[in-house]
């Protein structure tokens, strides 16, 4: 049976089992209809021209794993930023793991989507925010229909969340192949500040397909720093749909570090609903083999005096394929917008591919918008310079690649995370040099 059919028939069973109010129930029924009508996107869709899901859709995925697992902290420690004090919301095969997590209800809610969707005390927040910024495209709708679990974070106003929050979705490989559809909802109140690290990680080589949706609401003057660490195993694929709704004077940044996985598609959409908003989108992609990483971004400037900064660096080796499709829309009212976009790439050989496409739709006349994309190779004269100082070829290459990606790391505000990313980059480039001094 094809995955689409399997999903549609499973939904009938799933629908009756979930514990959600009629408000959410209605949204789910609507969403499954959208998925039924549209199915999975294909290369015929303009937004999916360079990324085909065919290969990852052909597995026979288990949709709801019932098998028990015995995952302990020691099994997953290495995937955490463990040397800092943090809140942790940890899921194993789509289910919340209370013994591995560290949540709170003390003055804020850092807990679970399933609780938020079912308990009456969260009803108002759910009705105000759930599925409100997520677009109604087919994959997001599929998630909306099926998802019942993920991180629910609600920070009231004037709150500085002192510890970063780590959201990690693990898959154990207990099933031959599994599909996961986590759903995160993050609401940050006026003047509040939160830092979040998100990761999807499989623990075996069994195929996993994750179709994740995260909705983030940053209210007035809120600051949200979001980090995505994508360094999954070679049979793991991720479709990451992140939607951000920003209010007046809020500042939101999303850093995406894509080093692992088979196919990774990031749909990252920012909607600026207020004045003097700043949106920051940054990414480092370093992939090889037959890995495929696609960044599809959208920043919608709706009101005046806002800014957006996009900076994506990509390094592609072997037969890897990269896609960057960055769209900036400046609506008629959004005068004095300052939008910047850069996508720079290095191809390490003739078989690697990058498709890069900036898209600007500007309807206001008093704006500053710039975009640029480059594709190049490593500079030979720089290589000789480094080697003439005794730095071997492989290390010299790594140093140049690191230097190329470096400025994206400068804006990472959690030092331990930055250090970890540095180590991941060194590992990815298979050198043993400490980049940070």
């Amino acid at each position: 049976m094809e995955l689409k059919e399997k999903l549609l028939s499973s939904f009938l069973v799933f629908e009756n089992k979930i514990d959600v109010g009629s408000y959410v129930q209605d949204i789910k029924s609507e969403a499954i209809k959208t998925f039924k009508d549209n199915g999975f996107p294909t290369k015929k869709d303009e937004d999916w021209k360079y990324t085909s899901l065919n290969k990852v859709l052909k597995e026979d995925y288990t949709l709801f794993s019932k098998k028990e697992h015995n995952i302990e902290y020691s099994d997953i420690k290495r995937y955490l930023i463990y040397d800092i004090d943090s809140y942790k919301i940890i899921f194993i095969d789509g289910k919340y793991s209370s013994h591995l997590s560290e949540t709170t209800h003390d003055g804020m809610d850092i807990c679970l989507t399933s609780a938020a969707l079912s308990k009456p005390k969260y009803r108002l927040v759910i009705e105000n925010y759930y599925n409100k910024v997520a677009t109604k495209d087919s994959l997001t709708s599929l998630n909306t229909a099926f998802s019942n679990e993920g991180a629910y974070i609600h920070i009231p106003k004037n709150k500085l969340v002192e510890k970063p929050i780590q959201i990690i979705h693990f898959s154990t490989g207990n099933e031959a192949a599994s599909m996961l559809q986590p759903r995160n909802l993050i609401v940050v109140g006026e003047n509040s500040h939160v830092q979040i690290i998100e990761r999807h990680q499989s623990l075996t080589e069994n195929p996993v397909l994750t179709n994740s949706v995260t909705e983030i609401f940053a209210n007035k003057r809120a600051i949200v720093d979001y980090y995505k660490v994508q360094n999954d195993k070679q049979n793991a694929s991720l479709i990451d749909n992140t939607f951000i709704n920003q209010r007046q004077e809020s500042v939101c940044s999303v850093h995406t570090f894509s080093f692992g996985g088979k196919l990774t598609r990031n749909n990252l959409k920012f909607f600026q609903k207020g004045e003097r908003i700043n949106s920051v989108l940054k990414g480092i992609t370093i992939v090889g083999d037959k890995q495929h990483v696609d960044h599809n971004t959208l920043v919608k400037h709706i009101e005046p005096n806002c800014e957006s900064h996009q900076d994506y660096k990509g390094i592609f080796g072997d037969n890897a394929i990269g896609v960057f499709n960055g769209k900036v829309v400046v609506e008629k009212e959004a005068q004095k917008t300052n939008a910047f976009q850069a996508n720079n790439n290095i191809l390490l050989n003739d078989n690697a591919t990058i498709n890069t496409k900036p898209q600007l739709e500007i309807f206001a006349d008093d704006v500053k918008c710039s975009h640029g994309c480059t594709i190049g190779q490593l500079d030979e004269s720089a290589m000789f310079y480094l080697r003439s100082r005794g730095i071997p070829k492989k290390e010299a290459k790594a140093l140049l690649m690191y230097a190329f990606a470096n400025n994206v790391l400068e804006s990472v505000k959690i030092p331990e995370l930055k250090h970890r990313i540095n180590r991941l980059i060194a590992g990815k480039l298979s050198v043993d040099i400490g980049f940070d001094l």
Partner: protein
Amino acid sequence: MLKINNLHASVEDKTILKGINLEVKAGEVHAIMGPNGSGKSTLASVIAGKEEYEVDKGSIIFEGQDVDELAAEDRAHKGIFLSFQYPVEIPGVSVTNFMKTAINETRKAKGLKDMPANEMLKLIRDKAELLEIDRKFLSRSLNQGFSGGEKKRNEIFQMAMLEPKLAILDETDSGLDIDALRIVANGVNKLKRKDNAVVVITHYQRLLDYIVPDFVHVLHNGKIVKSGTAALAHELEEKGYDWIKEEVNA
């Protein structure tokens, strides 16, 4: 220390060096002069191991070993250093990080452990002082936005850090004002020992007032056409290169 025999070298099928013979012994300072396009920089690059240059004939023997087949980094590990005429700008790599990597990779090649961080910092501080380099300069991206003088001073700073046996200074004087020239030359002189050697490649005699050579060679059309003492450099400064060309063509 260095013995070059009948060296012929080409780049992209264009022959540039046409039979160079040169011997440099420990403790010596050699100057190689010559008009533009005579092959001076090519000679420097070929000795340092730039891959685009093909050695067609002859040999480069360094400390008794033919280095022709060695990669640039292996030559550096053996003690060959090239101060670049045009140092490459590398944004994103700080001077300190670069030097730390270079030193530790060189140590690794010799089977030594990484230099302890405090020792490294002290070494960097001492050598920076020698070249009158401001400490802020060390955290800047390598050569990026450096003035001509700063780039050259940074080259000699690297030489001081790596303590090579053979240093080849390719047009180190170009782009230097008189103060920078003095600092650079002073640095080179302080690093000069009985067991190392310096080859100064220059177009003008100016630098040789500060770094006094034991031997001066004139390169013309890919060959050394005349060798002499420091007096030869003065003669070239006075008379230019034309008389040498005429002498060769006669």
